[in-house]
């Protein structure tokens, strides 16, 4: 037996395989335990009616999925996700691009600006939520205090308590916490822009906007697609900043699918139905990712 083990290790090819698997297996095991197993178990739970405590899970087939179709709270939450995806993607990418281009050619204090813009990114979304919850406080928050101090009392609002303003207010907080990431990645992408093309455009008489549209943005397409894909997925899965600031309120004004799922599964103890919601959320993420990865690959070709 020891001889066969010795021969195994004497074979370089087998030894390489063994080494490779030795590195892969722990990560694979973690992936199976913490991703694959919960994923399939969630699918199973989504086919049951269960309160999360009783020992028996009643199998109900696709009933939970049938109920999803007529669930107005789900559609309301998805519409908020859609708003988040659109505004929460366009705004940070646009701000990052604007600031990146502005600082690209080198300005005094470049490191300072880069640090300041990136600083909110290092904060956990929970911290961003707490900061902005305080900023929006109707009584002593800096936003209302400033408005009152300059005589604009009429504009002072209960930002997070107004059903029409709450979602845009949280999106603004989310954009603040995220645009620095877009800025830094775009800055890195700008270093690869071919300066000869910029110079050629200048010689051809292209103005700033034309250079941006026809030279810089095409040159950043891989970077922009990557950021956009990443941001879109975040928009589908957004949870923490909303939970910290409004918990989906006032009323249902800021519920997104993740907060609604959490509420249903853990607050209302409808774990089976909550699992069906989680599967829907996963599917939406998957579809969004697939579409944009396809676009990116097509762009690469």
């Amino acid at each position, binding site marked *: 037996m020891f001889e066969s083990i010795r021969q195994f290790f004497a074979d370089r090819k087998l030894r390489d395989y063994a080494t490779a698997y030795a590195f892969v297996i722990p990560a694979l095991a973690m992936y199976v335990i913490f991703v694959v197993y919960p994923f399939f178990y969630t699918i199973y739970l989504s086919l049951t009616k269960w309160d999360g*405590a009783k020992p028996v899970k009643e199998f109900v087939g696709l009933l939970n999925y049938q109920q999803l179709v007529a669930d107005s709270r789900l559609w309301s939450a998805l519409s908020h996700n859609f708003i988040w995806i659109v505004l929460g993607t366009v705004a940070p990418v646009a701000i990052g691009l604007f600031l990146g281009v502005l600082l690209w050619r080198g300005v005094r204090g470049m490191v300072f600006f880069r640090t300041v813009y990136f600083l909110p990114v290092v904060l956990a979304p929970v911290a961003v939520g707490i900061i902005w919850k305080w900023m929006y406080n109707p009584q002593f928050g800096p936003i209302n205090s400033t408005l009152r101090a300059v005589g604009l009392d009429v504009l002072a609002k*209960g*930002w997070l*308590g107004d*059903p029409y303003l709450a979602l845009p207010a949280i999106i603004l907080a989310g954009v603040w916490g995220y645009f620095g990431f877009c800025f830094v990645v775009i800055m890195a992408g700008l270093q690869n822009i071919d300066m000869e093309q910029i110079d050629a455009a200048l010689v051809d008489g292209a103005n700033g906007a034309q250079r941006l549209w026809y030279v810089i943005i095409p040159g950043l397409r891989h970077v922009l697609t990557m950021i956009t894909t990443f941001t879109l997925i975040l928009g589908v899965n957004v949870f923490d900043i909303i939970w910290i600031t409004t918990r989906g*309120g006032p*009323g249902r004004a800021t519920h997104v699918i993740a907060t609604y799922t959490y*509420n249903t599964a853990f607050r209302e*103890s409808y774990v089976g139905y909550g699992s069906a919601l989680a599967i829907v959320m996963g599917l939406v993420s998957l579809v969004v990712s697939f579409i944009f990865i396809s676009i990116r690959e097509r762009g690469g070709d």
Partner: protein
Amino acid sequence: MEILYWDQVSGDEAQAVIETIIANFEEAHPNIKINREVYTLEQLTDISRTAIEAGEGPDIMYYDSGPAYGGILGNAGLLLSLEEAYAAYNWDERLVSVSRDWTTYGGTVYGVGHEFEAQGLYWNKRIFADEGIEVPSTFEEMVALCGTFRELGYDPPMAAGWADWGGFPISHNWYNVLANSVPSDTVAAAISGEYPWNSPDIVASLDLVVGLVEAGCYDEQGSATSFLDGNAKFYTGQAPMMLMSTWAMQFFTDEITDEFGFMILPPIEGGEQTMIQLMGAVWYIIGDTEHPEETLTFLNYLVSDEAIPLWIEGAKLLPGVTGVDFSGYDVRPVYSDFLNLVSGWDGPVGYHIDVLTPANFNTTLWESNVELAAGRLTSQEVADRINAEMERAVEDGRHADITG
């Protein structure tokens, strides 16, 4: 041996009292050590079920009553039946009846209720005297007072904030209005799923809450103001009135110099003045505790004659015990008013809804009431929503039958 106790007592004075009670208990029982861990209700809801199932839960926990909280655990067989303990410790006689009634799930009693509370109207005696205003004797007078106080510059006339508790506080105000405008047996039938929540009488009670909003009673920023910030406007004299449970009395600290009055919600025309009584929270013993006898001994000590003065004078919380002579206690006048009111009350008793209704009903109710206050939903729409949730709960067997 050690007992793990999960607690949700809030307020500095109440925290000090429970620590004292534990120290006294340990002194009297040197072989038992109580390890107390403090959580919020939200945290307990999130972690208790999983922790107990994993064998990592406490021996005893202080959690809320009703199908949405203890009921989930009791019905899943995760709590220890206290039927024998009620007989052994004579709790049926020593404790108020709602202690058993509100902690019985599936025909078995699982808890001992604590923090016996009532809901009602607080008023600031100094402001009422300074402004020469009489305490309202009817609900309609109370609503009219909101306009009067607005004109006098009090903003808001009635302290409230429901930004962080998802509409929970404004819904409490509705429970009060409901109890005083719809007969208790009708409300009990609705809680039991035997009477529709979108019936005209219940819709009319929601209209009365809309009336409070339209009369300018609440802070216009109520849905952006946290519960404690909202209540603080009453404690600090900005708001002259507050509709709240007696739980709020623990926040009348020594720094607050104003004196306050407390009364049951003034009677609504066509209704009968009704006191909503509730147990703030409940002690449950976990089903798989390794030390049931010692934990029961500790639980009995928590409601013992030694602990009662500490609860009343120190924590300003009323234990759910019977036959207490309140006259000898050194407490704030407003608290003594409440104690006397409770001990002398012989009128009808109403229900605190959300401790008896299932969680899906509660979250829908709270969310919808915020939208009601914001004018985004009508009373009928709110009633239709909660009725649909009750029908769902009945179908799933998650409701409480309190009429049987």
